[in-house]
């Protein structure tokens, strides 16, 4: 069977415009949350978010590094983040100047949960105020979810499968899992895979706030708002950004002497068949996805050293935790599990891919990132190392990454360090 490994990483997050800056800040226990600066949020119930910072910020993102000025004007922020993260990953893999034969077998699977909501909001106002003749000719293709993959394929000449997953907050994990299967099934030798998101606009914040999904009680203390597993958690903090990995068939990577970060060994998918926003109360879907991922990896729970939880800082955290406890049994005592959403908020469709990269870096550096703000662990958390406050040095050879989305869609990935 064709094996799939990771040979490149790219990140744009609220804690950095690249992989190493983000990781350093994550390990230092920083928070990327602030009051919203992107627009006037004074009339919103939720006035905080984890925004990607401007270039002049200590850990800002410079869109001019990899995204053409003209493209920047035409597309929504999620596409800009996605192109840059994909560019980082392809450069990290040393494939940005690949020959034509390589590029024929080189594809893209970069999705988004929501797509270009800020642009849809803005252009609908143009339509209402100025009429159809003033709607931008770039409106449609500047907002479509598959246009990260489209733009990246055009920029780098990638002629393999061009795909985009849309499964809400499971998008990033599904993208990596599906792309790995495309390589395994011999549709491609290399795939850029991940997710990108920016729904940070009045409509996005108001919509999630009305669905009672966002934290609305910590508008004056944004850095304390995202507190997965804490008794006082009461909603997620909206994040934005992108994560993209370069996946490659193992022999292909080996033959060209590529640096190999990890192997994608397991992928599990399931549906809750329960409710549009609430998870199944017994975490059945989460359990099934994790179990399938472990089975595909040929592993047992005791083989897993670290779990990057979905852990959004909502009531659902303890449901996920209960299903992890049920699946892991005695092995729960040897695993560390944390939610990096405590630091960068919830990147929705970007979350699964960004968190998969944190899992890979945990294996590279033999350290697990913390769950910050976990001051008063909720009932049901006892007996589990949730890595409160501080990163922790430990053995990390295999990891499990969970992502669950609205609609009851679940994805789990198992990654393993190379022997």
């Amino acid at each position: 069977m064709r094996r799939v490994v990771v040979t490149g990483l790219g990140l744009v997050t609220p804690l950095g415009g690249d992989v190493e800056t983000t990781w350093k800040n994550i390990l230092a226990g920083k928070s990327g949350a602030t009051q919203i600066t992107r627009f006037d949020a004074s009339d919103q119930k939720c006035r905080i978010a984890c925004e990607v910072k401007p270039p002049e910020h200590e850990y800002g993102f410079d869109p001019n590094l990899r995204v053409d000025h003209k493209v920047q004007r035409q597309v929504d922020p999620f596409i800009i983040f996605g192109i840059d993260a994909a560019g980082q990953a392809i450069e990290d893999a040393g494939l940005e100047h690949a020959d034509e034969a390589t590029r024929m077998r080189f594809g893209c699977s970069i999705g988004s949960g929501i797509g270009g909501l800020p642009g849809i909001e803005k252009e609908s106002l143009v339509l209402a105020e100025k009429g159809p003749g003033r709607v931008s000719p770039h409106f449609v293709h500047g907002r479509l979810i598959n246009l990260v993959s489209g733009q990246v394929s055009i920029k780098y000449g990638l002629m393999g499968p061009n795909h985009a997953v849309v499964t809400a907050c499971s998008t990033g994990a599904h993208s990596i899992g599906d792309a790995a299967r495309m390589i395994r099934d011999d549709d491609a030798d290399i795939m850029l895979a991940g997710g990108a998101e920016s729904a940070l606009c009045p409509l996005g914040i108001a919509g999630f706030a009305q669905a009672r999904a966002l934290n609305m009680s910590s508008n004056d203390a944004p850095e304390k708002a995202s507190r997965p597993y804490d008794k006082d958690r009461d909603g997620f903090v909206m994040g934005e950004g992108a994560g993209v990995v370069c996946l490659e068939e193992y022999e292909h990577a080996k033959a060209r002497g590529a640096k190999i970060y990890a192997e994608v060994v397991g992928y599990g998918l399931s549906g809750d068949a329960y409710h549009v926003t609430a998870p199944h109360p017994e975490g059945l879907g989460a359990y099934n996805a994790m179990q399938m991922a472990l089975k595909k990896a040929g592993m047992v729970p005791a083989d897993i050293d670290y779990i990057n939880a979905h852990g959004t800082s909502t009531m659902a955290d303890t449901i996920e935790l209960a299903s992890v406890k049920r699946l892991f049994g005695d092995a729960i005592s040897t695993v560390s599990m944390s939610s990096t959403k405590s630091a960068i908020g919830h990147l929705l469709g970007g979350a699964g891919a960004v968190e998969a990269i944190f899992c890979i870096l945990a294996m590279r550096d033999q350290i697990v990132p913390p769950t910050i703000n976990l001051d008063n662990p909720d009932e049901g958390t006892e007996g589990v190392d949730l890595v409160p406050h501080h990163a922790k040095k430990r053995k990390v050879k295999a990891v499990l990454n969970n992502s669950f989305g609205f609609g009851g869609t679940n994805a789990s990935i198992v990654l393993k360090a190379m022997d």
Partner: protein
Amino acid sequence: MSEIAERVKKIVVEHLGVEADKVTEQASFIDDLGADSLDIVELVMAFEEEFSVEIPDDAAEKIATVKDAIDYIEANKG
């Protein structure tokens, strides 16, 4: 250079992301400035907004160079 020409060039630089010195009056939007047909639709919309002028589709199709745009606006500006 006329005031209209200056404003036209400013819009072209902003929308197409090209160096100002490349935006000569003879420059073709597609051949010299890297525009595609959708960029031209967008430029025409920007000219309409900036100069409060209507540029119908059949007239827009004839605008190929920076000079074509300046000439049309000078002749039709209200």
